[in-house]
């Protein structure tokens, strides 16, 4: 069996990737799930894992080469294949490639915007069937925080990620910026989409919003997945919140952003520039100040919804080295608790495979 390994597409905006380093060499055996090469995009660097086991027979993309999504990177052969057979597969792939890349671009999933309660909300709707899963990002984030999770999770069911008010490409004007306003936006979107009941997954502040939704509308929440979640204890890194909210240039923004990740090298200038692009939008500065004042004023979490956990099936995931909200908040909650060693606050990005596995396993057993 001759398999083609192609440039992956991580998230909506990725159109090309640069081959950073080959972790396997031509002739090496690879196991399914093993990391074969590192690819860098304008957003993030990550490893490409082998979707199949076999022998890496041809390495076709050079180190430092930038290739479009879907381009041929390597040939992995499971069992036997002659060089001529491999050549034929490569030739057929390359002949068909240009059109398929253009097609993917034209028909690929794209985020939509709706007006809900007088405010624009952006959401990305992937997958079909089952009780839908809604992904709620954290403070200062957007639906791209689920870049590495959303496609994998949507293999099993319909999965919707949204930009909360004041975030991403949703409307920036807030009334008060309290948890009620953020929760109402999620409920408004569900009503707009005629969805009664959902699994909720929230990261950080999105976890707090999810907990509040479980409080407001318990009948609509099938389960709760809380990742590095707010709302489970009083501590939060006030210096981070202040630094992030006030930063208006690259040098001021870098120290707070580094605290989010276990690998500081992820915070490159492109990530900083992308974050600044968000922070420069009219209304964002005020929205962030309103929200952080309402939820985390004085560098403490002002809202405790810990007693909401346990009413629905729950999964709590935390990075052991989270520098924003301590992993100790996971202790003693009535849920399946998974602490990922060495991981930081953005655990769903940095340990995407593991988080996806945990979430898929958890959601699979829900009625």
């Amino acid at each position, binding site marked *: 069996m001759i398999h083609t390994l192609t440039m992956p597409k991580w998230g*909506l*905006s990725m159109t090309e990737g640069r081959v950073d380093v080959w972790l396997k060499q031509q002739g090496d055996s690879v196991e399914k799930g093993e990391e074969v090469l590192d690819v860098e995009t304008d957003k993030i660097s990550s490893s490409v894992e082998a979707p199949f086991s076999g022998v890496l027979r041809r390495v076709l993309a*050079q180190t*430092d*080469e*930038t290739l479009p999504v879907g381009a041929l990177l390597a040939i992995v052969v499971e069992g036997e294949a002659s060089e001529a057979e491999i050549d034929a597969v490569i030739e057929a792939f390359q002949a068909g490639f240009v059109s398929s890349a253009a097609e993917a671009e034209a028909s690929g999933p*794209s*985020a939509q915007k709706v007006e809900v309660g007088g405010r624009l909300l952006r959401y990305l709707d992937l997958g079909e069937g089952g009780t839908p899963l809604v992904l709620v990002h954290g403070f200062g984030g957007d639906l791209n925080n689920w870049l590495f999770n959303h496609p994998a999770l949507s293999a099993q069911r319909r999965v919707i990620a949204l930009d909360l008010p004041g975030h991403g*490409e949703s409307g*920036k004007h807030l009334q008060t910026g309290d948890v009620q306003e953020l929760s109402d936006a999620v409920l408004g979107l569900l009503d707009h989409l005629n969805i009664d009941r959902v699994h909720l997954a929230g990261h950080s502040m999105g976890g707090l919003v999810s907990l509040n939704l479980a409080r407001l509308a318990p009948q609509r929440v099938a389960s709760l997945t809380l990742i590095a979640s707010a709302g489970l204890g009083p501590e939060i890194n006030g210096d981070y919140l202040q630094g992030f909210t006030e930063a*208006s*240039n*690259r040098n001021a923004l870098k120290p707070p952003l580094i605290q989010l990740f276990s690998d500081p090298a992820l915070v*490159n*200038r*492109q990530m900083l*520039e992308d974050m600044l*692009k968000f922070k*420069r*939008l*009219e*209304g964002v500065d005020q929205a962030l100040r309103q929200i952080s004042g309402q939820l985390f004023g004085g560098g403490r979490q002002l809202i405790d919804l810990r007693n909401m956990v346990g009413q629905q099936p729950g999964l709590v995931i935390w990075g052991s080295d989270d520098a924003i909200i301590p992993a100790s908040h996971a202790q003693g909650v009535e849920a399946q608790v998974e602490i990922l060693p060495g991981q930081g606050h953005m655990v769903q990005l940095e340990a995407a495979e593991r988080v996806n596995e945990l979430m898929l396993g958890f959601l699979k057993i829900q009625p």
Partner: protein
Amino acid sequence: MARKISYQQAINEALAQEMRRDQSVFIIGQDVSGGTGAPGEQDAWGGVLGVTKGLYPEFPDRVLDAPLSEVGYVGMAVGAATRGMRPVCELMFVDFIGCCLDQLLNQAAKFRYMFGGKTTTPLVVRAMYGAGLRAAAQHSQMLTSMWTHIPGLKVVCPATPYDAKGMLIQAIRDNDPVIFLEHKMLYSLQGEVPEELYTVPFGEANFVREGNDVTLVTYGRMVHVAMEAAANLARQGIDCEVLDLRTTSPLDEDSILESVEKTGRLVVIDESNPRCSIAADISALVAQRAFSFLRAPIEMVTAPHTPVPFSDALEDLYIPNAAKIEAAVLKIADKRNAA
């Protein structure tokens, strides 16, 4: 994915959104509406390359066609700015600076200083600049160093649609006179641009590519040429950092020095003529402030000291290209003295 529009559309959108937001913003220039009061004005062309197209029908009182007298309408805009308006004045080609130099050099740039801060001049002068359009010597110059030389003026040279919109909005809201330079060869460049209002601050360079071996500093159209060179050099194992200055005044000295301190090698790329140029200025800055970090001589890649030729072949030869940048980098890349 954010919406993609062209550099030209980004400028048009910034003007429209700021005019909707602020009644004191108005546009004045030659042909900006395509003949105010003339038949057919509703779908008029909108400037020599159509950048202001569609604005006149929406803002008929605030898009003013001026007679062929830069000294007159630029002077008028300077005066209006001192009285609380926010004029966006279009000089068409930056080459016409000579026809209104006193208004900008001796008036607009000096008011805040000479009146002890009691007067501000929130004026934007938009102008096309740069070579490549086969428009000959009188319509192809850069002249960035002339503007940058004058204290009291801010000089903005966006390289992308994103920067074009955000920096034009910043320019309109800025209380000092801003020279906003639009490279003609970038007008059709597509890029992601938020639909919302946003500002890109002045004096903050953009690291468009991170690298460890050589720093390429440039601005405007040359950012894209430098990126092309950097991609070619990466295949040869040379890792370039590319810095887009975005504004030449104020100049982000810190980012230039920060990068050179890391790489130890500098190539400055400037489409302008070399004497007293941005390239020369940055070279001097680095020689003065980061000399001990340099591991090789500084290289400059610029146009030659001649007017822009009209001949296609000569114009192509005149404009710095990726091959010239690559040659400059290769010249200094293997020098490891005094490390």
